[in-house]
C-alpha cells in the first residue's frame, strides 16, 4: 500500500500555492456536519435499549441504507484522498486500487454476507465459533479483529490529524484528539445506530463531492470525453512538466521503476485487496444490522453500485488533476503530496466554497470510518472475549455486554489517540493500512470460508489458520522494506499477501487434517448449513 497515506509525513509541511487553512466557510461546514451528527447521536441514544440495539442497530436498517453505510464504512480517506492523489501522480497503477476495492465485494456477496447474517449475532467470530470450540476460536478471532481494527484506526487517525491540520488549521494533536473524542461520542452514546447514520450521510456527501468534482473536470475539457482522454494520455500538469501518458501501466509498479519484483508486488497487492475486504471486521458487522439475509444481500448490491460508481469517477478527478493542476500546487517540500490533490483541485475548479465542501467531506469520511472501526473492535472484545472467553457465554447481568463494549470503546479510542500522537504525523500510515488488509485476508478469510464450506474443519485448524495468517502477515511486513531497519529488509515485497494468504489457508488445512476428527463440530455442520442457507433460527429484528 505505498500510495494512500504514505506521504502523510510530507503533508505536515507547508504546501506551495495551497488554499489557506481555517477559512470561515470551511469552519462553518465542519461545525455544521459535527452538529448534525451530534443530533443524530442524541436521537440514536434514546433508541439504544438492549444489546441488539447497541451492537446491531436493532437489525432494523434497510437494504439501501445499509448499502450506503457499507460504502461509507469502506471508502476511507485513503480511498478518496489517497487514490485521487495516486492516480494524479502515478496514473494507471493508482487506478488499480479502484478496481480491487470494488471487485472485492464479489467475495463479500457470494461467500460471507448471508451465512454471517444467518448464523451470527454481533461479530465475525460468531460464525467461526458456531460449531467449533468457542473459547480458543473466539480468543484468536478477537485478537485478529482488534489487530486489524487498531492498525486501520491508527492509520486513519494519523491521516485525520494531518489532513485536518491542513484544512482547518488545527494543530496535529488537537485534530487527532478532536476526531477521537467525536468518534467516541458517536460510538459510546449512539452505538451502531448513530454510527450507521454518520456513515450514510458521509457516503451521500462523498458521492455528491465526487460527482461535482468529475463534472467540473469534464467541463474544463469542454464536456468532451475524447478531449479528456487525449489530455491524460499526454498529461503535462498544466504545462509545467514534459507530457506523460498516464494511461500506461507501470509508472509505480513497473520493472523499470520498482525493479524485478515490481509486478509480483502488484499481484500480491491485488490479492490482498480482493480477499482482504471480506475479512475486515468493521465491514462484516454491518451485515448484522439488517433484518435478514435477503436484505444483507441487497445491501451488498447497493454498496457495489455506489462503490463502483465512486471508483469509476476517480478516473476524472484522479487522472484529470494531472491535466489541470501544476506540479507545484501538489508538492510539499519538493515531494508530491497525494493527499492534497482532491482538495486543491476542488479549490482550483470551484473556488473557496467548493474547497470548504470537499474538506468537510474528507473530515466526514474519516469520522465515519473510525466510528465503524471502534464499533467493531469494542463489540468483538465485549462479545467474544469478555462474555464468551472469560464468562463462558453466560452474561452475568443483563446489559453487562453493552457496558463492557462502551468501556472498551473508550480504551480503544484512548489507545489509538495516544499511539497516533506518539507516532506523530511522520508515521508511514500506508504500512498500517497494508497490514490491516493483509491480516484480514490471511487470517480471517481462510477460516470464514472453511468453516462454512468444509465439514471436517476443526478447532485446531481454525486457531492454526488464524494465528499463522496473523503472524505471517505481520512478520513479512516487518521484514519488508517498510519494516524497521535493524531487520535488514530481507523480504522483497511490500505486500505480503501472495505468501501469507496461502499460508493462512495451508495452516487451517494442515491443522485440521493432522489432528483427530471432531465429531461434535462435524455433527453441527448440518445445523450450520441449514441455518446459513435458510435463515432458520436467525437473530430477529427488534421492533421499535
Amino acid at each position: 500500500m505505498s500510495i494512500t497515506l504514505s506521504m502523510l509525513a510530507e503533508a505536515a509541511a507547508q504546501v506551495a500555492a495551497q488554499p489557506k487553512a481555517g477559512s470561515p466557510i470551511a469552519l462553518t461546514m465542519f461545525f455544521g456536519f459535527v452538529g448534525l451528527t451530534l443530533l443524530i447521536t442524541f436521537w440514536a441514544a434514546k433508541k439504544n435499549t438492549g444489546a441488539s440495539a447497541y451492537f446491531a442497530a436493532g437489525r432494523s436498517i434497510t437494504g439501501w441504507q445499509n448499502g450506503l453505510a457499507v460504502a461509507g464504512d469502506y471508502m476511507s480517506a485513503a480511498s478518496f484522498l489517497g487514490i485521487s492523489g495516486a492516480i494524479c501522480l502515478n496514473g494507471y497503477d493508482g487506478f488499480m486500487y479502484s478496481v480491487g476495492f470494488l471487485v472485492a465485494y464479489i467475495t463479500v456477496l457470494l461467500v460471507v454476507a448471508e451465512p454471517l447474517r444467518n448464523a451470527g449475532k454481533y461479530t465475525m467470530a460468531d460464525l467461526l465459533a458456531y460449531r467449533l470450540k468457542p473459547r480458543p476460536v473466539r480468543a484468536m478471532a478477537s485478537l485478529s479483529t482488534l489487530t486489524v481494527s487498531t492498525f486501520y484506526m491508527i492509520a486513519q487517525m494519523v491521516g485525520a490529524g494531518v489532513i485536518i491540520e491542513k484544512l482547518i488549521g488545527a494543530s496535529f494533536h488537537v485534530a487527532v484528539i478532536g476526531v477521537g473524542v467525536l468518534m467516541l461520542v458517536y460510538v459510546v452514546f449512539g452505538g451502531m445506530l448513530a454510527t450507521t447514520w454518520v456513515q450514510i450521510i458521509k457516503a451521500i456527501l462523498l458521492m455528491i463531492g465526487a460527482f461535482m468534482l468529475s463534472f467540473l473536470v469534464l467541463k474544463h475539457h469542454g464536456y468532451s470525453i475524447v478531449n479528456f482522454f487525449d489530455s491524460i494520455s499526454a498529461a503535462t500538469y498544466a504545462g509545467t512538466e514534459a507530457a506523460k501518458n498516464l494511461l500506461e501501466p507501470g509508472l509505480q509498479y513497473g520493472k523499470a521503476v520498482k525493479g524485478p519484483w515490481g509486478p509480483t508486488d502488484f499481484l500480491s497487492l491485488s490479492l490482498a485487496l480482493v480477499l482482504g475486504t471480506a475479512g475486515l471486521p468493521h465491514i462484516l458487522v454491518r451485515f448484522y444490522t439488517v433484518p435478514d439475509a435477503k436484505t444483507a444481500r441487497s445491501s451488498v448490491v447497493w454498496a457495489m453500485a455506489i462503490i463502483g460508481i465512486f471508483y469509476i469517477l476517480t478516473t476524472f478527478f484522479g487522472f484529470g488533476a494531472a491535466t489541470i493542476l501544476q506540479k507545484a500546487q501538489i508538492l510539499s517540500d519538493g515531494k508530491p503530496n497525494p493527499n492534497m490533490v482532491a482538495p486543491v483541485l476542488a479549490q482550483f475548479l470551484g473556488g473557496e466554497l467548493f474547497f470548504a465542501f470537499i474538506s468537510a467531506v474528507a473530515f466526514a469520511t474519516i469520522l465515519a470510518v473510525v466510528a465503524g472501526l471502534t464499533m467493531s473492535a469494542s463489540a468483538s472484545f465485549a462479545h467474544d472475549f469478555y462474555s464468551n472467553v472469560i464468562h463462558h457465554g453466560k452474561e452475568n447481568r443483563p446489559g453487562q455486554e453493552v457496558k463492557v463494549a462502551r468501556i472498551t470503546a473508550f480504551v480503544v479510542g484512548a489507545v489509538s489517540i495516544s499511539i497516533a500522537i506518539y507516532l506523530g504525523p511522520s508515521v508511514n500510515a500506508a504500512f498500517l493500512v497494508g497490514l490491516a488488509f493483509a491480516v484480514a485476508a490471511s487470517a480471517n478469510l481462510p477460516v470464514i470460508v472453511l468453516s462454512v464450506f468444509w465439514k471436517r474443519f476443526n478447532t485446531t485448524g481454525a486457531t492454526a489458520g488464524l494465528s499463522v495468517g496473523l503472524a505471517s502477515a505481520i512478520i513479512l511486513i516487518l521484514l519488508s522494506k517498510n519494516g524497521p531497519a535493524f531487520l535488514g529488509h530481507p523480504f522483497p515485497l511490500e505486500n505480503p499477501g501472495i505468501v501469507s494468504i496461502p499460508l493462512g489457508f495451508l495452516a487451517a488445512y494442515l491443522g485440521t487434517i493432522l489432528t483427530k476428527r471432531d465429531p461434535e463440530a462435524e455433527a453441527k455442520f448440518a445445523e450450520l448449513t441449514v441455518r446459513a442457507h435458510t435463515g432458520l433460527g436467525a437473530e430477529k429484528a427488534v421492533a421499535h
Partner: protein
Amino acid sequence: MSDQKSPVNWDALEAKPEFRSLVSRKTRFIVSATIFFMAYYLALPVLVGWFPELMKTQVLGKVNIAYIFALSQFLMAWIIAFMYVRKASAWDKEAAAVIKDHH
C-alpha cells in the same frame, strides 16, 4: 437458540433431498463464479505486470487495452452480482419451502 419454540431436527432438514440439491446447486454456482472472477481479476495485474507493451496498445482513440480491461472489471463485478441476485431469489423460495413446517 432462545427464539426457537420447539427444537428443530437439523439433521433431518439437512438430509432432505430438496435441501441437498439446493445446497449443491448453490455451491456449484458460487465455486464457478469465484474461479471465474478471480481468474478474470488476477489476469489484470499479470498482464499489466508482465506484458505491459501489449496492454499499452491504443484501441479507442488514446484509450489503451489496459484501461479498457480495468474498466471491464467493474462491469464484470456488476454482472456477477446481478446473476447471483437473480438466482438467489429463486433459491430463497426453495429454502423457504424446506423449512415451511418450522414457521
